[in-house]
Structure formats: structure tokens, C-alpha cells
């Protein structure tokens, strides 16, 4: 049985808490306007990706041969390509591919990098030394070159691109998380956990991991922008998501390049989509890093 006199204040407190969250968010947006702008861009991309089936006026694959390379107009906001396909619809659907590949790749990279970093940082000793030398070797290859090499072995395609980009993102995630774990493991609560005979696994995953989540989120957010850019680069080079799928990178490559002088809108809009999306994720990632890093926090 509930007591109305108790419920009423708690509801009021609830609304108060929500209001307080909004107020803090607005204050944060004013303090980090670029981050807020990034968040808006990210939200727009997520909306485009989620609502593509609703807001795209045409089937992104449908070819209209009587509307080839029509310049942007009210009927075709971004114009049409050399097959008469509506570019606005293709860019909207492209957001889905971009997000899908980006999130999957970052999940692979961050998850693998974080686990390896956690184990390496916590265990230390020879294991740490060996795993970090492996990471040194891994990092010697620029991310996109490594992804290209992996795709060359696995072959083109959406899944392979996710794996390739994901694997190329393991070392940076590993380094950041290892650093955070090294700082964390010297804390007293870890010693306390050891004192009560907690297992190493429990200490790593129950106590340390939750405390290094902030850098993991920051790494993942920044990596997402890079992953989207890498996907676009691989598709641009013809080894990523294959046509006729409306991946932004492949839209920017091939036919767009051929018709750059005749129909520049074929390259401009997918290019703009890549630019804004990557900028959005990077700005958001930078802002999150600033917020969660006490050394960079204003007034800290």
C-alpha cells in the first residue's frame, strides 16, 4: 500500500530531476557549443538512418531512365544520378549503411581493444610487455592501409568491411584502456577487493571495467567518426560496400567521378553527408572527452 503523501513529493522530485537534467544539458550545450553542434549532426544522421524508409521519397535502387542526371529541384532535392536514381533517397538510405558499418566496426574494435587493454594493463609483467609489442607492430600500419589489406584478403562486402575497420581500431582502444587501467589498479578499492580474495577476473570486470567506461565511451565516439570515414574510403576505392548499395563512399566514387563536370551534385551531396557526419561524431567525441577528463574540465 502506498502512501500518497510520500508518492506526491517523489513524483515532484522526479519532474524536478528531469528538469534539472535538461537545465544541466542546456548549460553544457552553452559551455560546449561545438559539442552540442556535433550532437545535433549525430542526431540528424541517426534520424536519417532510422527514418529513411519514411522520409526517402523514392526507392534508392529504382532507376528512372527519363530523369538521368537531373539537377537538384523540388522533386529531387539532391538531383538524380546517371541512372536517374534519386540522390536524396540514396543519401538517406546511405546513412543506414554508414551507421551500421560504423557501429559494428567500432564495437569490434573497442570491445576487443578494451578487453585486451584491460587484461594487459591489469596483469602487467611479461603478458603486458608482449601484448604491447604486438600492438606496436599493429599500430605501425596506418588504419586505412591495414583495413585495405584485410579487405584484400577477405574480399569486398559489408561484413568484411566491418571486420577490417574493426580490427584496424583495436590498437588505439587498447592503448587508451590500458592506460586507464594502470591508473585505476593502484587505487585502494582494488587492494580491498584483493584483500577479500576476489578473483582476478572479478576485479577486472566487476571493479575496474565500470570505472574505465568513460574513456571507453570517448574512444568509441571518436572512433565512430573514423570508422564511417574508413568505410567511405574503402567503398570509394571499390573494396567496401558494393554498388548498387547506396553507401556514401561508393556514391562518391565511380560514376560521380566520371560525371564530375556534368553533374557535380552526384559527388557534392554524398561528400557533404560524409563530411557532416564525421565532423558531428568528432565534435561530440571531443566534447565528451573534455567533460569526462578531470584535467580538461573547467573549474576542476
Amino acid at each position, binding site marked *: 500500500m502506498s502512501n500518497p503523501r510520500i508518492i506526491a513529493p517523489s513524483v515532484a522530485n522526479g519532474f524536478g530531476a528531469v528538469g534539472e537534467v535538461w537545465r544541466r544539458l542546456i548549460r553544457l550545450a552553452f559551455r560546449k557549443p561545438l559539442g552540442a553542434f556535433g550532437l545535433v549532426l549525430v542526431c540528424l544522421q541517426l534520424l536519417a538512418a532510422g527514418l529513411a524508409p519514411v522520409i526517402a521519397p523514392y526507392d534508392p535502387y529504382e532507376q528512372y531512365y527519363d530523369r*538521368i542526371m537531373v539537377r537538384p529541384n523540388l522533386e529531387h532535392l539532391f538531383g538524380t544520378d546517371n*541512372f536517374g536514381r534519386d540522390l536524396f533517397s540514396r543519401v538517406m538510405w546511405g546513412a543506414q549503411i554508414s551507421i551500421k558499418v560504423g557501429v559494428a566496426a567500432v564495437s569490434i574494435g573497442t570491445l576487443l581493444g578494451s578487453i585486451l587493454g584491460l587484461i594487459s594493463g591489469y596483469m602487467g609483467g611479461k603478458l603486458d610487455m608482449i601484448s604491447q609489442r604486438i600492438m606496436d607492430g599493429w599500430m605501425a600500419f596506418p588504419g586505412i592501409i591495414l583495413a585495405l589489406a584485410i579487405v584484400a584478403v577477405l574480399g*569486398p562486402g559489408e561484413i568484411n568491411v566491418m571486420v577490417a575497420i574493426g580490427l584496424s581500431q583495436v590498437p588505439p582502444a587498447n592503448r587508451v584502456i590500458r592506460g586507464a587501467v594502470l591508473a585505476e589498479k593502484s587505487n585502494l578499492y582494488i587492494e580491498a577487493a584483493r584483500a577479500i580474495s576476489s578473483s582476478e577476473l572479478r576485479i577486472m570486470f566487476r571493479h575496474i571495467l565500470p570505472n574505465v567506461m568513460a574513456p571507453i565511451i570517448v574512444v568509441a565516439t571518436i572512433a565512430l567518426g573514423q570508422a564511417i570515414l574508413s568505410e567511405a574510403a574503402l567503398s570509394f576505392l571499390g573494396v567496401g560496400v*558494393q*554498388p*548498387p548499395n547506396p553507401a556514401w563512399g561508393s556514391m562518391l566514387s565511380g560514376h560521380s567521378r*566520371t560525371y564530375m*563536370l556534368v553533374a557535380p551534385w552526384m559527388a557534392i551531396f554524398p561528400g557533404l553527408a560524409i563530411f557532416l557526419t564525421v565532423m558531428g561524431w568528432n565534435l561530440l567525441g571531443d566534447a565528451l572527452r573534455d567533460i569526462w577528463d578531470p584535467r580538461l574540465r573547467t573549474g576542476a
Partner: protein
Amino acid sequence: MTYSVSFARSMVVAVAAFYGMLFTHSPAPFFGAVRQALAASATSTPRRGGVLVRTQWAPPRSLDYCRDANAFGVEAMIAIYEGLVSFDYKLGEDFRRELKVVPYLAERWEQPDENTYIFHLRKGVKWHDGKSLTADDVVFSLNHIRDQKNACVKRGNLAGVKSIEKVDAMTVKLTTDGPMAPLLESLAQRETAIFPKHVYDTGQLFKGVSGTVGTGPMRLKSFDRNEKIVYTAFEDYWKGRPHLDGIVAYFVPEPQSRLAGFLVKRSDILTVSDKAQYEAAVTQSRSAAGEGFPTTHGYAMYMRVDRPPFNDVRVRRAIHLALNRQDMVKALAFGLGKINPPGVSAVSAWAMPEEELLKLPGYRLPKDKDMADAKRLLKEAGYGDGLAFSIQAVSVWDNPRIAEVTARQLKEAGITVRLDFIEAGQYFANQSKGDFQAQLNGMSSDSIDASLHQYYYSKGGGNAAHIADTELDRLIELQRRTLDREKRYKVLRQIQEYLLDKMYVVPTIELGFYWITHPYVHNLANSRSTTVMLYRAADIWLDDRTPKRTLP
């Protein structure tokens, strides 16, 4: 036709055309006037000197004109090597309609009986190293090409040749194993070239610059497969010293880079594969002139007809019925392309007339009946719930465009196609291993006999579809042995009808192609080729508007 219009007026028209394109997006009417007005300012007396610069899509794989005589090999070597006879390439004429064969290194020939040809070599023809052309060179070259162990790309051109003998120093007798209707056409093919026996005897033939010795108007000066190939004029050329001092061809795979180079006059001639690019080039350059033509590079879909699902003729027919070639011409060739019958290029004199072809199932409009038939055939073949397969296509040039349209059209009939765009080397490796379900590729040949033997004959070198049909083999052999033109045409019609029924290879369209030159380039004979532009290099000349250049 030319107009006499002042240069200044022409420039005004050019600018108007450019802005007209921006605002109306239908610039074509402007171009003709601009082009022809500026062409009128050219002088008509050949001028000696100058270096012609062009861009080539890719380098030849090697300098071996026997083994690597693919399109890029031919383009690199066409000004160096020559044949006994040649097709009659002329300015402004389409040689493909009649395939008229004219004397070249042989100044004449005679045919004492159906199986014997005697070629009399032209006197005074010199190799680039100063030695004279003899019958020994001809006997060696033709035997070298047809010898299986040399793996010459076009060895099929000489299939049916029984012997090649030297009669005297300047006469060669060629005997066939029966009547050979296309023999002269085969000898006129650019790949059936004559090589220097004396260079072969030193073991240096096709090896580097010193092993590249021909009788053509240009000598090889240098070859760097990562950058360029340089030719210098051959002073002792049998037709007289070429007008040009030399030619430089840069290897530029990127179309926009080729176009940019052309626009700033870093190259003098350009090929593009569609009207949109052509109009961009002509508009931007303001003075360039061009010519569009359908090529003989017909795109077609090969399937492994010896394996499911394509071993069922109903599936192949359904694919044929589902394609809308008229839309392909619109989308891929912007109106200039041609719809191909099976087995032969639409521009060939042997092709089934277009008006007849366009009434046939698969080719006719509207598509409703064909589409319904395609679905019915798929259902009968057990694919009522849909058919799925993959098409491999080379990831560059026009292949992706054609593949995308093909896939989309097949979707209408419930056929799901996965497109695999792969690098050319991998593509051809898969083709020779038979490692594919279906492939999309251009089937290129000026000679119908060469084309049928290469792609459709059961033992053909390019029989990627794995066709093994004794009746088809018999018909292909029969057309080769039928000397009477009328009778041969009937056999070739029969072959086209047979292929329409069996649909071993699904034909699509010939793309349109454009050659564009700056107005200071003269006498460039259009070979109607997608890449090969230097067939009559000795005749080309540059007027005094050409940018000053020296041979690198």
C-alpha cells in the same frame, strides 16, 4: 560541312553554349556550330614536325605483341607493327560495314584456287633497324602466331591455315585446309602482324626497346609501364617520313584526369565512352571537335552453361527476356549505342537488320509480354520463388555501369543478382579457371569469324560460357568454309537465330564511343575503336596552333 565564321564569333558562341548548358541542360545544338566554326580555321596543308601527346587508359602488360595483344597492347604497338593486309580505315568512313581489305606490306595478292593465296611483298619496306622485309619474316611471323606454344591471343585468326611457304625472297604462298571465307579479314586483323625474323633469331624479339622492331611509321623510343611510352618518327618508312616527330602516350587510368589533361592541352586526343562526358569535354575546351560512333565492343553476359542453373535453357531465355535493351541504350549510351543480336556486332554487315531484331522476343517493346514469359519460364524451371546468382564484372571502365543496370532490370523478373566488382587480373583469372556463375564483359572483334570462333566455338580460346554444342560448331565451321557472300550471310543468319534460341551468351548493347581532338590535330583516321587511335599514324599532322613540345 564547315562554316566560315571568325574566331571571335566562335568564342562568343562557345561561351553562349557553355552558359546554355548550365541553364538549359540541353547543350547539344550549340556544339556542332562551335566545333565546325573552329575547325574551319584550320589550315589544310600537312605540316611536318610536332609531338602528338595522348593519354592511354592502361599500359600493355608487356611488349610481347603476340601474347599480350589485348586492347592496350594493340594501342601501344599499332604504330610499330604492320600486317600483310589491312582494313581500309578512312577519315569519316566506317570501315566495319564492309570490312574492305586493302594491300599493306603485301602490295598485291592472288588466289589461284580456293585453298591457295599468293602474297607479293612490297619492295623497299625496311625494319626499324635498317634491314629489309623479306618472305622469311612473313613465314616466321604467321607460323609464330599460330604455334600453340607461343600462346598468341589471336592464334585463332590463322586456324584453318595448312601451310605458309616462301616462294622466293618477296613472295609467300599460304595454303588452307579448305575454303576460308574470312582469311583476308583475319590477316587484316591488327594482331596478325609481321615481326622481324632476324631479331627473333638473336633471342631479343619483344624484349625491351631493342627487341621492338617493326616496319610501322613509329619506332619505340622508351617504355615505362608506370608512366608513358614514347615513339619517334621512322625516317625510312615505306610510305615516306611521317609528319609527326614523335608521339607520347601517358598511362592515365582515371577518366577525370584524362579529361583535365585534355582540357589544358597536355594531351591532344581523347576517347570517352558517353555523350555526357563528350559534351563536357567539348564545352569546357571550347574548341575541340569530336565524333561519336557505336563501337564493336558489345557487352554480353556469359553464364556457365554447363552448370545449374544456367544449364537449363529456360533460365537463360528468361534472363534474355527480362532485359530491356532500349532502356540500356538510354541509360548507358545516352542514345548512341546499338542493340546487339547474339554472336555478332550490331554494326557489322553480317548482323540481322535492326528493324527485324527489334520485333523479336527479348528485344521488342513494350516489355509486358516478355516479362510475363520470363516469369513463366523461371517457374517452369523450378525458380518460381525467385532465382539468385552472382555476376562478376571488372571494377573499372564501363563494366560497373552496365552491371548495375543489368541487375536492376533482372530484379523486375524476380531475379536477384549479387554484383561482384573485381580487379581485372582476378576477373580474367576467374574466367580462365571457370570460377564464376556469370560474368559481364565486352566481346570485341571486327571479324565475325574471329568472334564466333573465340567465344562460341566449343574449342574457342574465349569460350568462357563452356559451350559444347556440335550443331553450333558445325554452323560456325560452315560459315568459315562458305566463300559465296550471299550463302555465307544465310549461314550467319542461321547462327544468329540458333543463338537466339539457345541463348548461351546473353547479348546487351554496344556502347557509344567518342573521339575528341583539339582543332590543331589533322588526319586522325577513326578506327571506331574504344582505345586504338593510331592506325594511320603516318598520316597524322599537327598545325602551328599545337603547344610547343619536345620528345622526352
